[in-house]
């Protein structure tokens, strides 16, 4: 499997009137062909900013890539010009968003929008592009694609619109598809349809998928590997099974425990994480989770924790596993 994407020590900031908001503070991960990587975290943790930076969709300024490398298909795109990015977007990497209605042109027939995207990147006649558009609509399981192509976005339901978005994203056979909360706005039964479709397409076309979500259920059902983000940093990363069954970071542990399971009785209390995430205008010097962590020690507030290896391909950033840490602190399950 070849490597499609490598993000190394990425820092992204936004310059605002109040000061510099450090939205992403040193994120690294990589992604191989045909793999599904989930980036999980709460709102404001920097997961969407990370994804948008890979597409360079953030308006710069106010956004600024302070440091880091993004190697997409063996090419560093951090310094790519807007013109170069135009060629990359759609062809190498494309994106689907949370709200499909705001991403489709309301005044244009769905089929036209698709052929436009296809003809921008591929040399095709109008007829060929139209055929390709119909094939794509079939691929994403839209019934009566010929007729549907003539309709406008408002005539489609939310789930159907998301299918159109997926068809459009796939129109130039990208190597990487970024899905930013693709099912958050949809109902559970529609969510199940879309997740099934994404899985199927990933397998069929060998497209790598980055799935950005806050829903751990979606992660469990789709992801091969998981990156957990908190306050602009990766706190833990690894294979999905390791993250769910052997979480190492106190934040991941608490997050998994805070979800009620169907076996839980009403008298059991949910584990809750006190407090709120830190303000990224003035991010804490030490571990960003320290103020909410029940195992926090003095060092956690003073220095950012180093990354440690939990197992093969499973990493975490925390002071607890450090060899000098007293064992009674690190021991004991939460």
């Amino acid at each position, binding site marked *: 499997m070849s490597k499609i994407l490598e993000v190394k020590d990425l820092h992204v900031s936004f310059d605002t009137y109040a000061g510099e908001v450090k939205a992403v503070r040193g994120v690294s991960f990589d992604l191989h062909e045909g793999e599904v990587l989930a980036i999980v975290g709460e709102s404001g943790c920097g997961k969407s900013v990370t994804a948008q930076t890979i597409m360079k969709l953030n308006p710069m300024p106010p956004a600024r890539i302070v440091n880091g490398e993004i190697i997409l298909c063996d090419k560093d795109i951090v310094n790519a010009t807007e013109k170069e990015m135009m060629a990359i977007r759609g062809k190498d990497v494309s994106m689907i968003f949370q709200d499909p209605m705001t991403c489709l042109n309301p005044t244009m027939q769905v089929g036209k929008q698709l052929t436009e995207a296809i003809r921008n990147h591929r040399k095709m006649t109008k007829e060929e592009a139209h055929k390709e558009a119909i094939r794509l609509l079939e691929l994403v399981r839209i019934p009566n694609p010929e007729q549907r192509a003539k309709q406008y976005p408002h005539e489609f339901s939310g789930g159907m619109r998301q299918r159109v978005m997926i068809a459009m994203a796939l129109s130039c056979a990208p190597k990487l598809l970024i899905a930013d909360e693709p099912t958050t706005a949809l109902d559970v*039964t529609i969510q199940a*349809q879309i997740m*099934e479709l994404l899985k199927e397409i990933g397998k069929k076309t060998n497209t790598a998928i980055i799935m950005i979500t806050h829903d751990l259920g979606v992660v*469990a059902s789709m992801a091969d590997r998981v990156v957990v983000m908190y306050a602009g940093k990766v706190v833990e990363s690894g294979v999905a099974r390791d993250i*769910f069954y052997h979480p190492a970071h106190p934040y991941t542990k608490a*997050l998994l425990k805070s979800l009620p399971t*169907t076996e839980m009785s009403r008298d059991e209390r949910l584990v809750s994480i006190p407090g709120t995430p830190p303000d990224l205008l003035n991010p804490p010097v030490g571990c960003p989770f320290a103020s909410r962590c029940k195992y926090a020690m003095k060092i956690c507030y003073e220095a950012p924790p180093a990354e440690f290896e939990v197992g093969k391909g499973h990493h975490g950033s925390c002071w607890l596993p450090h060899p000098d840490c007293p064992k009674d602190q690190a021991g004991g399950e939460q």
Partner: protein
Amino acid sequence: MMDMKTMNMPEKKVDDNVLIEIQDVSKHFKVSEGILKAVNHVNLTIYKGETLGLVGESGCGKSTFGKVLMGIYPATSGKILYHGKKDIEITKKNLFAYSKMAQIIFQDPYSSLDPRMTVGSIIEEGMIIHKMYDKKRRQERVYELLELVGLNREHANRFPHEFSGGQRQRIGIARALAIEPEFIVCDEPISALDVSIQSQIINLLHDLQKKLNLTYLFIAHDLNIVKYISDRIAVMYLGNIVELATSDQLYEKTLHPYSKALLSAVPIPDPDKEASKKRDILGGDVPSPINPPKGCPFASRCPHATEICRQEKPKLEMKQGHLVACHHVKK
């Protein structure tokens, strides 16, 4: 909390445990395309001290039903009888008296708090309207309520924009509790919040229920949370209640095909269970509530639908210990 015996009670005889009787309530809206039937002939009993979960997809009428129950929307037909501190029928005339006993917590903690009012005056407002206590005592109550919901008294002089989503939801809860209600409609109180904050609010609602002996109607689409918090769960589809059972029974022995599909569609945060789970993926979308189909509302998406389903609407009947509306579930 409620065993099956109490659920089986004949509707006519009101026992002491019943808080609200909803009799054949419908809510229709006139729109340019026709009549939008948001809530259709709902019969439901809510018992004192219980949490009744109401689940369904967006557009199924669950929030409209919550608002009808609060008297925010007058019902198009049917009757709602309330047996709390006072026995009243919920009508426009009785709304003021009723609002002293029932309150609502909204989904969006941003748009449901007046940005120009301080938190203290937001919480106090209900008490002023209902002429409760003198000024000094009201101020004390505001402080007490803030502490009850996990905020502190200094927050009373601040404005809503200074708070995070979870804190705002706490303010919304304090406001609802200010007039000492017995019944609270929780309309998706946690779906706008982050995962780590959701459990804080759920735990708070749980503790308050025990402490103040509250009755909840908990409206949500997150089935894992509804299962956890509810004693009984009603499943709604296209304005109709299709199944009603205690939460354990609903999960252990799901009867209605829609409830089955809904439950199997929920992703479980456990990769092994997800991989081994057999999903009943529903095709299609929810039909429009404007001029809905005449037979079973679910017939167009149901894998078991037959001719009778398209012709005749099934009644909500007691079958195998659940109230279920389906022609194909055996007694």
